[in-house]
């Protein structure tokens, strides 16, 4: 059974003035369990809309989304979310943020406390349990967000530009962390990003999406994520294969942008 099966999903938003925008049109794909799918595309291509539909925050206008054969109708703890930033609870300590999910699901402290410790180590925040989240840097906050999501042991992790607000160095480190977590937990991950490099490096599958109407333009299966687990990230990103793909995708997106400018004006 496919971990995720999206068929003929369409999404039409009504905007004030009687017009409507086709954020997604006829999107279909299957995703096997344990894949890391990255969604890439210019603004307005519907990548975040697609992620929100899978998360259950939005109901598509047409089509169905099945997870393990069951229709997704609302958010659930089988699908963890990691947002760009500011989705942590400032009034809770790092440890309390991470244990939020288990506590909401009425788990006993003895059940989740060891796991929280373990997760802190995994994301490299050992010893930070009692810190307040606003005392942490942006990169550390995203580590907490990742750990909070993992604490619920979801089948799938959905990330909406999780590294978008980080500086370049922190970003590279976090990419490595995401790859490691992906490998170690074997979870299915869908990650939305604006960065071509990030999409190529992290995605073992990559959708380049196009706007107006939002749709999947190209569906790549990539080797870099697998290689990135062992090889050096910088060398990998400098390899000819990586550069070639990056160029190809950049051109594709560049053309889309040109088209938008052309028809829009």
């Amino acid at each position, binding site marked *: 059974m496919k971990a995720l099966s999206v068929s003929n999903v369409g999404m039409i938003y009504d905007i004030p003035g009687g017009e409507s925008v086709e954020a997604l049109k006829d999107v279909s794909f299957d995703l096997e369990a344990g894949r890391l799918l990255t969604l890439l595309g210019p603004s307005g291509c519907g990548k975040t809309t697609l992620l929100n539909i899978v*998360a*259950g*925050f939005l109901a598509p206008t047409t089509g169905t989304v099945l997870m393990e054969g069951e229709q997704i109708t*609302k*958010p*659930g*703890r089988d*699908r*963890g*979310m990691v*947002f*760009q930033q*500011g*989705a*942590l*609870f*400032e*009034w809770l300590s790092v440890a309390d943020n991470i244990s*939020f*999910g288990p506590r*909401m*699901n009425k788990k006993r402290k003895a059940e989740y406390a060891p796991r929280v410790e373990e997760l802190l180590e995994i994301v490299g925040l050992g010893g930070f349990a009692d810190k*307040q*989240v*606003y005392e942490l840097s942006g990169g550390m906050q995203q580590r907490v*967000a990742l750990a*909070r*999501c993992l604490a*619920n042991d979801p089948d799938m992790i*959905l990330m909406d530009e999780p590294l978008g607000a980080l500086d370049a160095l922190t970003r590279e480190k976090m990419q490595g962390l995401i790859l490691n977590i992906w490998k170690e937990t074997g979870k299915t991950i869908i990650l939305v990003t604006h960065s071509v490099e990030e999409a190529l490096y992290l995605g073992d599958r990559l959708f380049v999406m196009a706007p107006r109407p939002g749709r999947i333009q190209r569906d790549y299966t990539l080797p870099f994520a697998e290689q990135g687990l062992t090889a050096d990230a910088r060398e990998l990103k400098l390899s000819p294969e990586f550069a070639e793909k990056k160029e190809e995708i950049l051109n594709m997106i560049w053309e889309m942008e040109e088209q938008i400018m052309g028809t829009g004006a």
Partner: protein
Amino acid sequence: MAGSKGGLVGLFKRGGSQNDRKTVTFGDASAVRSLPMYSLLALLGLVFFWYLATQPFGFPDDFKATVDETFQVAADDAEVRNQERIDSGNPNLIEIPFLDPTQRDYLAACAQAPDDQCSSSDYSQFLSPSKFPSPGDTWVAFNRLRTRGFQNETLAGHAGISLWRVIRGMFWGTLIGVPIGFAMGLSSRLRGLFDTPVELFRPIPPLALLPLFIVWFGIGDGTAVRLLIFASVWIMIIAARAGARTVKLSKVRAAYSLGASKSQVLRRVILPNALPELFTGVRVALGVSWGTLVAAELVGASSGLGSMIFTARNNLRLDVVVVGVIVIAVIGVLMDLIMRFAESKLIPWRGKG
């Protein structure tokens, strides 16, 4: 180097190691702070000005001796009379002389002197004791109010009555206002339902309702507390409504995808997230309540600081009025300081999300 920053001079200088190294600070808001020594200076200045304005001047030297002597006799007499009253077990009848003793005795001396030796130009002040008591008189009145009281209550008693009314008013105002505000922030239907009454009642100055409240609830606690509920509830509704709406969609969504139920999202996300706004609401409402209460007590109560001031005015006891005014100001400042302290302890994340 570091030693030069200490000492008395340091308290008057713009502090902070960062500011010391800045070459341009005019227009740099972060370099401007309130230097405490200047605040103290302003306070001393105010008291000094008050002292000067109530000080007699143009007083002939030879009169002074006479007056001092007369005053001593009069003061001794007063002490004896007061002691008699205390002994007779009726301390509430004790009078605090509202005239400046110096002036009173000068007038006494005038009465005995030939007309041409005593004219109003000999004795003058910017503020005569019949219009504004001097700092010394006020201090005396403060101490008497503190120990012997006025209107069957000590000063602390009056202040306590007023404070307790404010606390009760705020308690109910918050208890009623916060759920309504949250409802308005979270549901379109309830927003529509409550919008009209809130917008209609909010602009009404609570004191405009005082006559009605006195008719309905009589003079005393009932009227005062209900008026304060009316004063605070709209502020708390607006604060809670704003607080509920400041929650980031991503926080709510994160909570739902972590398995939280609606009521858990309300209690564990929306409520704590709204605390900074609620706190601001409480601070504003407390300030408004305090002002409203004192005004309401002038006519709507027979105890409390406002009532004390009103009765004192009727008896031309301006020293008591001034003490009351100062106590009201000081309590207002203290309440705000306490709230600011509580805020830094209870919601340290404020402004850091």
